[in-house]
């Protein structure tokens, strides 16, 4: 019976947000008015044990003295094993999470832009850049989901711009393959 109950509970545990984290695992933090409520929001990036970066967004008054669990928790939001991610606040109350990676082939940068829109935090833009070690140029794929625009720059320098009807994504969402297939070297 106990084993049965344990099996029933396992999927819930697997997706539950951690109630405690190691202070050494914190990779980034900003506190700013992002428009989601009367109090400024707190955005926290935390490394998990496997190199993934979890995203937390929570509101907390600095003088309330009351703990509240983060309202938003997105495990595996980004991946960066070498360099720490960069959180950057933008003037329009949105923010970006930038991660850099390097390999034998080159260096890549991936930025996700998040904003509070229509009652929820959503991904409103993405930027995917790759700089090959050969120094030939850069492959850049930029997605503006608010304006419905995507721009693809091949290493050869050729630029393709298309309009898209892909709406801003939920925080655990991903771009459809029909859009990313333009993003090629």
């Amino acid at each position, binding site marked *: 019976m106990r084993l049965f109950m344990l099996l029933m509970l396992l999927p819930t545990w697997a997706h539950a947000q951690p109630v405690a*984290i*190691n202070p050494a695992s*914190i990779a980034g933090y900003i506190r700013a008015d992002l428009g989601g409520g009367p109090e400024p929001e707190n955005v926290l990036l*935390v490394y998990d044990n496997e190199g993934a970066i979890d995203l*937390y967004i929570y509101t*907390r008054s*600095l*003088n309330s003295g009351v703990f509240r669990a983060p309202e938003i928790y997105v495990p595996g939001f980004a991946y960066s094993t070498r360099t720490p991610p960069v959180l950057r606040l933008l003037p329009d109350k949105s923010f970006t999470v930038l991660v850099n990676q390097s390999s034998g082939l080159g260096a890549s940068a991936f930025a996700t832009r998040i904003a509070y829109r229509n009652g929820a935090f959503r991904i409103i833009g993405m930027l995917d850049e790759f700089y090959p070690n050969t120094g030939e140029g850069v492959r850049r794929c930029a997605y503006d989901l608010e304006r419905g625009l995507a721009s693809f720059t091949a290493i050869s320098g050729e630029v393709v711009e298309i309009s898209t009807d892909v709406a801003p994504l939920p925080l655990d969402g991903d771009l459809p393959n029909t859009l990313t297939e333009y993003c090629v070297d």
Partner: protein
Amino acid sequence: MRILIFAIFWPMMALAQPTAIAPESVIGFLQTDTNGDGHEERVLLTLSDSNDVDLYIMPDTGAKPLAYVQAFTAINNDRLTLVAAGNSAFDVVQTTRHGQGTTVFSQRIGWVNGADAGYFTIGLTLRIYPRYENASVIDCTIDFLNGRLETTINEGEMQVFDVNMAPTRPGAPLPEGWNELCAG
């Protein structure tokens, strides 16, 4: 027997630095070189239920804090920010609004070499912006390392004094008399 074991270990437990914190307790973060070693440490502020703020200085890699100060400060309707200050120090800036105006109190924490090497509070800045027009704006900075106090009233001429105050450890009581020197 259990009580005896607990009694032996309790003081160690009480002094131990936490290895786990609630994610929502984080209220400040800064990544910068705090000790001049060329690596960027991570400075972290967390808030407890009792409004005490704990300070952590974490290495760029590794899980053991370089420094941990329990109840470094307390806040109540304050704003607390971390600001990099050169390549071996950072400021903890506490802004308080009150009936008389706004007070900005900044503690500069940095690495000091020597026999007792470690992190120290190496400077303080106090700025008071009064609410009333005819009151004085006070701007006062004490540099403990160089024994220097600079004060300016109403954006007038800066006055410089020699002071003899040793740096203290972060979270320890500030050198006696600093408040009188600045605000007095």
